[in-house]
Each structure stands twice: as structure tokens, then as C-alpha cells.
């Protein structure tokens, strides 16, 4: 890969924090002469040119994964992603380069130390679950602890906790063959959680599951991640999954990482034609968030102002309602023109009594897919708020529908517009009010 894509620091990777996993210039060549193949690849040979020296599964991979990050490696089969993840726990040894896990370089440690690292630092979830069929669910979940040499009572207690975490508390005595695919993978997840390692490798963990079960598992993983703060490296061939789960995504093709970035970066600024084609049919409603499509409200009213000002501003902006915020921009409610105008005639001084507090507000990180239901239930644009409940933007229904249409007019400028016009910094939001009140 080109050096600039691999080493470009991305904004959401905190500077100064030691990475949990660091991959530096890693190659893996299967075949008779890996060293020679690496030398030629470094000199600029293509994958096909070194074919007689071996199969280059991974070529010059470099990336850092920050503690607590979900880092997704995405690519089609044969792109080298499975080989890459297997070098992160030493199941494969790199042909060249370094894989640093905390303070240990997996490329150079001996077998004993490697086993110790696997027991204490990094665990794995497998595509086809890889459970022991002759052991109960509880004993399967307790397996890593057994390897760690922990006593029976203690390991069963910790395995039960892990099973509770994934919602399989009542199934401890069952055999894996008695469970459905989704439940089996929960056992796989519980097993990895029971090991209590900081780093979790997930190899196509949800790919063998039905779509409904899969999205259920994705939600559960995100919940667990929020609670436990593990560092997760997730392999998938499913772009939607990658975009939904990943804090950052590395796209692999033919052994090389072609782009690393956030879901929105990859969607709005694909590094090359391959990535662009790949993302063309992504389910945008799950990738784009409220923050990426919201607009600045044309009018925002302060709770301290009066009905006269409110009525005038709404008239000037040609809107029929406006959101009301307090001095710290926390959303207080909505004022309708039909309430403000009579209030002016009646000489009401304060806006406060006219505010309808019963408004539909969504968090800025809500995916578009989850905006449709709230949007359908209200006649005014959706209010978008941040963690502190402060109004950061609005999403009119028309905007929501527009955002769903992929870039179809050639240069993809729509993407850029949506992505760039999105994040108005909360501080700069001006006093402007909702447009187009009620076109049902």
C-alpha cells in the first residue's frame, strides 16, 4: 500500500495514548521462499510477479489500534484479512514486519511467551464458533480459564458471569448442538469475554448468522463494548457491518490495505475506484447519522425572549414554528406561530408559557435508519441534540429522504456536500428557525 494511506493518523485516534495493537510493515507470504518474495515486493513487485516464490497474503500492512477502539478490517475473501488477524495473536508468524501487542512483539517472542500472551492479552471469536461439541456451554465458556490454570469453582463462576453478560445465563448445562447459531456465537463471545483479555479478535464472527440475528449480535457487541471498553479488531466482508461497528475501517484488497478511515470518510472520500465501487451499495441509512445530514435551524428562539420577537423572526424566516433553547443552548421545546401571534395581541411578556415541551429530539449519533419512525410521528423537523441535550441542528423530512439517495450524478459531489455541510459546530448555530413546518 502507499505509505500515506497506511500511516495517516486519523482524527479519532487519540494522540499520545500508546496503541493497544501496533502493526508495522507486516508481510505474510505462504510458499517456498517468503524472504525473497518480501524483498521483491518491497522493491515494488506486484503480487502476481512473486507468485512463483509464494502466495503473498498480506503485503506491507501498517496500522495502530487505540485502546477501546473497534477497528474493522474489511475485504472480500482472498483479500488477506483472515491472515492478517491471525498474525495479531501469533497463529501465523509474519514473514516480515512487527506486530506489537502492548509491549511484546509477536514476531519475535518464543512459543512459551506467545502462549502466555494469548492467555492474558488477546482472545478470539471464530466465524463458525469453534466450540467443543462434547462440552457444556459453561465448560466451553470456561475453557480459556482452564488453560490459564484457574481452579474449577472460580472458573465456573467467571464463565457464568460471561454467559450472563451475553444473555445465556440459563443455558449453562446445554450442549452447543442444542443451541441455535446465534446462541452458539454468544457462547463463543462469552468464552472470549471470560478470558478477560484487553484485546478481542473477531474473525467474521457474525458472517455465518442470519441477517436478523446478525444485527442483534452487532447491537449486543456495541453494548458490551460500551460497558467493557475492550479493544476489538473485527474482520468482515460485509460493508454494512463494517460501517455500523467500526470506529475506523481498513479496506483490504489483494493483500494490501487500500484505505483506513472512519465510515464516513470512506463513504464520502473513497481512496480509489475499488473502494468507491465497494461502497456504492452500502446501506447508507445505517452509516450516516443524524449529525451528518442535519441542517442549521433558520430560527432558534431564546427562552428569555418575548412573543413579539418570536413572531417577527418566524415571519421573516417564513416558518410556522421554531425550537426554543436556554442560555446554554439546551433544548426546551417548540413554539408555534399560531400560539405566538395571539400572545402578542394579548400582550403576553414571556415566551415561557407558550413553549410546547413535548418535542421529538434525536441524538446526533442516531443512524438515519432510526430517524424515520420519529420523523413520521411529528409534523415539524426533528431536533438533533448532543450528549448534553443541546440543540445542534434539525433534520427536515425532505433532507432525510434526499440523504438516502446515493451519489448518482457522476462525481459524487452529493456525498461531499452531505458530509461536509453536516457538522455545524454546535457553538456557531445561529438564531434561525425551522423551515417547512407541516407539509405532511
Amino acid at each position, binding site marked *: 500500500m502507499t505509505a500515506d494511506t497506511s500511516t495517516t493518523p486519523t482524527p479519532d485516534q487519540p494522540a499520545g495514548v500508546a496503541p493497544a495493537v501496533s502493526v508495522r510493515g507486516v508481510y505474510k507470504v505462504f510458499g517456498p521462499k517468503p524472504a525473497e518474495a518480501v524483498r521483491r515486493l518491497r522493491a515494488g513487485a506486484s503480487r502476481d510477479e512473486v507468485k512463483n516464490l509464494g502466495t503473498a497474503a498480506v503485503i506491507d500492512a501498517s496500522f495502530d489500534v487505540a485502546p477501546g477502539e473497534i477497528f474493522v478490517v474489511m475485504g472480500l475473501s482472498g483479500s488477506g484479512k483472515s491472515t492478517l488477524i491471525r498474525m495479531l495473536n501469533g497463529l501465523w508468524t509474519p514473514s516480515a514486519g512487527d506486530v506489537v501487542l502492548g509491549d511484546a512483539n509477536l514476531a519475535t517472542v518464543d512459543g512459551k511467551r506467545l502462549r502466555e500472551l494469548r492467555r492474558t492479552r488477546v482472545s478470539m471469536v471464530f466465524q463458525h464458533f469453534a466450540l467443543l461439541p*462434547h462440552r457444556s456451554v459453561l465448560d466451553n465458556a470456561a475453557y480459556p480459564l482452564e488453560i490459564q490454570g484457574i481452579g474449577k469453582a472460580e472458573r465456573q463462576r467467571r464463565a457464568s458471569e460471561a454467559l450472563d453478560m451475553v444473555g445465556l445465563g440459563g443455558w449453562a448445562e446445554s450442549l452447543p448442538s442444542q443451541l441455535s447459531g446465534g446462541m452458539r456465537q454468544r457462547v463463543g463471545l462469552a468464552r472470549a469475554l471470560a478470558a478477560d483479555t484487553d484485546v478481542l479478535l473477531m474473525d467474521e464472527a457474525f458472517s455465518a448468522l442470519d441477517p436478523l440475528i446478525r444485527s442483534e449480535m452487532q447491537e449486543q457487541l456495541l453494548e458490551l463494548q460500551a460497558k467493557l471498553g475492550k479493544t476489538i479488531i473485527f474482520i468482515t466482508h460485509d460493508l454494512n457491518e463494517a460501517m455500523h461497528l467500526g470506529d475506523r475501517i481498513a479496506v483490504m484488497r489483494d493483500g494490501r490495505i487500500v484505505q483506513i478511515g472512519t465510515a464516513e470518510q470512506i463513504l464520502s472520500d473513497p481512496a480509489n475506484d475499488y473502494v468507491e465501487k465497494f461502497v456504492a451499495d452500502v446501506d447508507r441509512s445505517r452509516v450516516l447519522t443524524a449529525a451528518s445530514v442535519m441542517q442549521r435551524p433558520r430560527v432558534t428562539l431564546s427562552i428569555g425572549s418575548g412573543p413579539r420577537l418570536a413572531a417577527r423572526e418566524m415571519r421573516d424566516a417564513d416558518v410556522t414554528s421554531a425550537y426554543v433553547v436556554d442560555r446554554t443552548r439546551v433544548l426546551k421545546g417548540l413554539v408555534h406561530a399560531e400560539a405566538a401571534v395571539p400572545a402578542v395581541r394579548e400582550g403576553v411578556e414571556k415566551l415561557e408559557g407558550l413553549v410546547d415541551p413535548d418535542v421529538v429530539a434525536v441524538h446526533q449519533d442516531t443512524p438515519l435508519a432510526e430517524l424515520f419512525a420519529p420523523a413520521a410521528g411529528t409534523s415539524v423537523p426533528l431536533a438533533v441534540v448532543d450528549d448534553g441535550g443541546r440543540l445542534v441542528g434539525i433534520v427536515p423530512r425532505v433532507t432525510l429522504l434526499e440523504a438516502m439517495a446515493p451519489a448518482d450524478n457522476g462525481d459524487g459531489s452529493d456525498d461531499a456536500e452531505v458530509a461536509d455541510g453536516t457538522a455545524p459546530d454546535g457553538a456557531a448555530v445561529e438564531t434561525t428557525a425551522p423551515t417547512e413546518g407541516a407539509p405532511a
Partner: protein
Amino acid sequence: MIATASDTGTFVPRVELGAWVESAIDWMTDTFDPVFDAVKTFFESIYDGLEWVLSTPPFFVVALVLAALAFWVKGWKLGVGTLLGFCLVAGMNQWDNAMESLALVILASAVALLLGIPLGIWAARNAHVSRVVRPVLDFMQTMPAFVYLIPTVVIFLTGPVPGIIATVIFAIAPGVRFTELGIRQVDAEVVEAGRAFGSTDRRILRQIQIPLAMPTIMAGINQVIMLALSMVVISGMVGAGGLGNDVVAALQRVDVALGFEAGLAVVILAIFLDRVTAALADRAPVAKALRATR
């Protein structure tokens, strides 16, 4: 003979392979005589012990014990069938022969498995070993069975021991093959899981590979026992004892009655051994687990 020799003799010289093997066996007999003596004494004493255990009690006691075993591993049908079958064997006056053959089968199978299963495990884990073992097994399986009897008779003379040794050589192949196959067939991801959680290779073998390969290994054990039984009959030719003696005698005397009775006793023994080992295979934890449904 002379014509044949002159036909090919101009192109290919007579290769005295048979003579070389013979002199190699002779040399071994002379050089390792004490070793072979020790081996013979060792196997003879174990065989005598086994045979004593099976033949000394009255037949109905042994038949009841074997029937109880069949009942325990499989169910009452096999138990009753075993009891009736062995009563018939006793009724045909073949009981002592059958017990001698059973002792031979048990001993030869045990030795074949003791050697074959570890060899199969080794071959599964090491491609070089596998490459060497495979053609050797092919050779051992395709060589006509009673050819093994010739060198073993030269070395061990007559009696049960040459029969046991020849049987081990003849029956070992499926023990090795099924074990190797079973272990190679274990889901690579499950083995990877063991490795990924920091297990040692030895522990992966013990906790994952062998249990998961057990249904296949058990099928191999079943095959070893069946082959052993057929060879034990053939080794009647060297006076190994048991049902084989009567089969060979019946053949030499064209005695249809004796041949049928001894042959039927072999069939009954075979069915018993086959059903019991197959039932044992079904009782392997993995086989049970895979049968379990919601």
C-alpha cells in the same frame, strides 16, 4: 520355466528379491534369537492368561458376562442375541475354540491398537511421517494375508505367537489410517481456538483432537478387530489354535459339517465383536453430543 527365463532374461536379469528377504529373515532369526524368544514368551504368557480367564469358568458364566456387556453397551436385544448366539456355539461344541479365538483377537487387536493409534496420531501431525507410513500400510494391506505367516513361523515356530504377530501386521492398517484421518478431519477452527487461548499442542491433542476424532478412531478400532478375527482364522494354518484349526482341518478333510459349524461360530463371534465395538463408538462423548437435539 526355462522358456520364460530366456524370454525376459536378455532384458531383465533375475532379481533374487525373495532369496534376499529369506536370508534377511534367517540372519534376523540367528542374530536376534534371544529377543524373539523373549517376545514369544511374553505374548505366550499373556495369551495363556487371557485364554485361562475365558475358558476356565463354565461356559454359561462367560456367556452371561459377555451378554451383560452387550446389554450394557447397547441394549437388551443385543444382550439376548449374544446369549443365544454363544449358547449355539456351545451347542455346536465349538465353545473352547471360540474362546481361544477370542483371546487371540483381543490380544492381537490390543497390540495393533497400542502401536497403530500413536502412529496414526504422529502421522496426522507430521507430513513426513504420513508420507512414509502410507505406502507401508498399502503394502501391508495388499500382501496376501497368509504370506505373513511364513516369516513368523520361521521366527516363532508354530503356536499362537506367530498367529498373533501375523494378525497384528495384517490388522494394524485401519487403526493407523482411521486415527490419522480422524485427527486431520477435526475442524481446524476448533484446533485454532485451542491455540488462540494459549493451550499447548499436547493439551490440544488430549482435549480437542482426540475427543473430536474419537468417532472415527472407534470406527478404525472396529475395523482392526474385524480384520484380526479374519486373520486369526487364517492363522489356524500354523496351528495358532481356536476356530481356525477346525476350519483348516475341515478344509483338508473336506468335512462339510465341521466346516459349517466352525464357520458359523466365527460369524457369531464377528457379529458380537462388531456390534459391541460399534455401540462403544456411539457412546463416545462427541458422538453423543452431536446426536443431541434441542
